[in-house]
């Protein structure tokens, strides 16, 4: 009944589109620019290009994980296991290389296999068994955490992969290093997928109206499997690049990316309800979040305090988006 739609269950997705359209995704860039300027001017050493590049590189890890999260959220779901997957990927590499004679490449392959398996598990629970995505990925994240714990027996190890680590860290191509190169490749893939391909369009449509997607002849189950496998694989990739960057893995390495990836997506203006969004916004969201974190670290705010501030910023921005796009009814 049209009454119900306007009065109580008004679609938040239509709100997301009214008034702002594509400009919506420019807002986080604006915010980032403003924040950066303010900080660059007031804090010495912040405004330099090397520092800016360093920040961008750091955003890369989050950006890659958030890329998968963006696709999942646009499809109407959410993935709370990406953080655990980052950890598992890192831990798999270090443990495999430490405990066996396998080299780097087989270890990487193993990590990606694990990612695909996790994606299949999530896809099966959500697509086949109709378990709510939040609950399913929460459960699988616990299992993955447990597996990571089991693999490392509590004590993860260091690893040396000189050539890979060099590529990751040193600016090799046009002055950017491996992390940034990976992020650019991931960004291009995700942007192309979402903005230009049929499959990406179907992801949007399924997120907007899953029933209509079924009636239109799309394969909702395949889409579900795809997005969750996509997210897991990207998270694994981020984890692999991350351990190359730091040289070791530890059991909490993926934790920050869990809520961080969702934060980056939401900050970027993508609607949590699905059906509409853009990775452009997420990129800015990742940059913004990393900027905030580094500022907070600069001011010696503790881990807890950082969490609190980040959470507050997310809340405020969500509120702003919600208020700014109310329907006229």
């Amino acid at each position, binding site marked *: 009944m049209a*009454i*119900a739609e306007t009065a109580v269950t008004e679609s938040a997705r*239509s709100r997301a589109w009214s008034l702002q359209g594509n400009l919506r995704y420019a807002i986080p860039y604006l915010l980032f620019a403003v924040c950066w300027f303010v900080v660059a001017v007031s804090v010495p050493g912040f405004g330099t290009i090397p520092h800016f590049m360093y920040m961008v590189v750091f955003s890369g890890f989050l950006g890659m994980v958030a890329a998968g999260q963006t696709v999942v959220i646009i499809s109407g779901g959410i993935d709370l296991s990406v953080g655990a997957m980052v950890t598992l990927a890192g831990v798999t590499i270090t443990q495999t290389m430490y405990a066996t004679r396998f080299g780097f490449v087989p270890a990487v392959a193993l990590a990606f296999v694990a990612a695909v398996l996790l994606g299949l598990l999530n896809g099966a629970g959500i697509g086949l068994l109709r378990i709510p995505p939040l609950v399913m990925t929460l459960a699988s994240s616990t299992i993955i955490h447990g597996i990571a714990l089991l693999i490392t027996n509590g004590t993860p190890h260091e690893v040396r992969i000189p050539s890979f680590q060099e590529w990751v860290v040193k600016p090799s191509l046009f002055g950017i290093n491996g992390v940034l190169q990976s992020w650019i490749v991931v960004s291009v893939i995700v942007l*192309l997928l979402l903005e*230009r*391909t*049929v499959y990406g369009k*179907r992801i949007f449509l399924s997120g907007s*109206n899953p029933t209509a997607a079924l009636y239109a002849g799309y*394969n909702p189950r395949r889409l579900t499997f795809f997005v969750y496998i996509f997210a897991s694989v990207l998270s694994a990739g981020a984890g692999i690049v991350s351990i190359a960057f730091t040289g070791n893995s530890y059991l909490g390495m993926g934790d920050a990316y869990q809520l961080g990836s969702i934060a980056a997506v939401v900050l970027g203006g993508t609607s949590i309800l699905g059906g509409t969004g853009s990775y452009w916004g997420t990129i800015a969201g990742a940059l913004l979040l990393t900027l905030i974190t580094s500022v907070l670290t600069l001011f010696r705010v503790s881990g807890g305090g950082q969490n609190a501030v980040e959470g507050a910023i997310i809340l405020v921005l969500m509120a702003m988006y919600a208020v700014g796009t109310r329907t006229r009814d």
Partner: protein
Amino acid sequence: MSVPVQSSEDPRRVPLLETRGLTKHYGLTFAVEEVDLRLFAGSVHALVGENGAGKSTLIKMLTGLVRPTRGEIRYRERCVELRSPHQAMADGIVAVHQELSLVETMSVAENIWLGHEPRTRLGRINFGELVKRSNALIGEVGLEVDPSRPVGRLALAEKQLVELLKALSWKPQVLVLDEATSSLGDVEVGLLKRTIGKLKDAGCAIVFVSHRMLEIFQICDYCSIMKDGRIVHEDEVARLDERLVVAKMTGRQGQHQLFPDRAGPGRRRGRLLAVRNLHTRSGLHDISFEVRSGEILGLGGLQGHGQVEVLECLYGLRHPTAGSISSGDVPLRLRRPTDAIKAGIVFVPEDRKIQGLFVDRTVEENIVACSHPMVSFLGFLQPSRVREVTQQLISEMAIKVERVSALLRSLSGGNQQKVALGRWLSSRCRVFVLVEPTRGIDINTKVEIYRLLRRLADSGMGVVLTTNENLELVRLCDRVIVLFEKRVVAEFQGDEITEHNIVAASFGQAQGRAS
């Protein structure tokens, strides 16, 4: 425009509820224009009109759901502003709608008294009193239902009557029955009529919105006919007849102008699909029929007797437990819509907002939603092809839209339905399946859709549809199959397709060949 009511009553009698120049427009569209309506206590006032004539908007204004753009509402001789449905209900203006809005997880009694439950002295809800009062109401209406039963367990007709009880609990002085009989069986309609009689005696004013002529002529005292947002005719029911009412509603003198001519009997009709001995878990029993090219096939019968289920089987939305659907001599495995589409079968569902279209996406995206292979290359969308296909369809079907990047929900119902139908046109389909293709759209768009379906059939496709309106079955279809209690009970061809035959078969009566 004020139409004088030719009433034999005292013209100085004051109406209980009255509107003066009531108008509502959304942007440039006028939903309701300059309506003067007078409702008198102790009378039943029918409100008729085609879908899109403005009835629902008028009702929404009377019940506080929508704020009028202009004009005033006078209730009990005073000008009122109805700010919310709850306020209207508290004042005594209550509506019963066709769509149910009950809390299925709560009991009948809790639903009836929701929002105005009797309280104990401590402020809690007095559940005992709740059941007692519910029983009183239930007894007055004559229904037989246990007030402590969860509503979810009731049959559809019973739920509709609970909606009525809910309305009655607010002690209405003006009761609006908006298509409230559509889900009711004969027994329940009888109870409703009795209740209406009692309300009349108590001085209530009743507004009766319905498509069913028979009920209107049996129950109502006055009738207002709406067309294009205005009241075009108003009179005592005793002075009206069905033909006049329909003529005023549609603005056409004859009905046959609505429908294109049926295909002649002599055309070659190849078999496209053969459905044999279909059984489903939902109760379909031994359904067999054929879909032929060049032909519009209609599935008739009472609502809910399996018609939609049969069509869902054709599209892979429902899996039969026995039987087969074959194309040529090859049985098709229709496990999901993709399989059906590959076999050349497309589907236009009943509820375009929830099932058929992506209302929060753009018009353009909706138009090409089912033709991605045609507008893409190696998986990548070609924006130029998308624009081409979109423009083509818009002009072909005369879809009224400002910009293709507008959201689909901004289109009118009729235009939305054109998109829901038209989006399949560029795919290579041979069988076009439609459920209630003209539900909730204005008369002009209906005509366009009828002509489109005729054209599709004439070009060699097989069109299969089901509809509630027997008129469409009679005038549009070349062949009609009637289902009764999930079985095929009759098949009519050509001149055999008459309203009488269809209705008789709908009630399970033996297939008699009447003229």
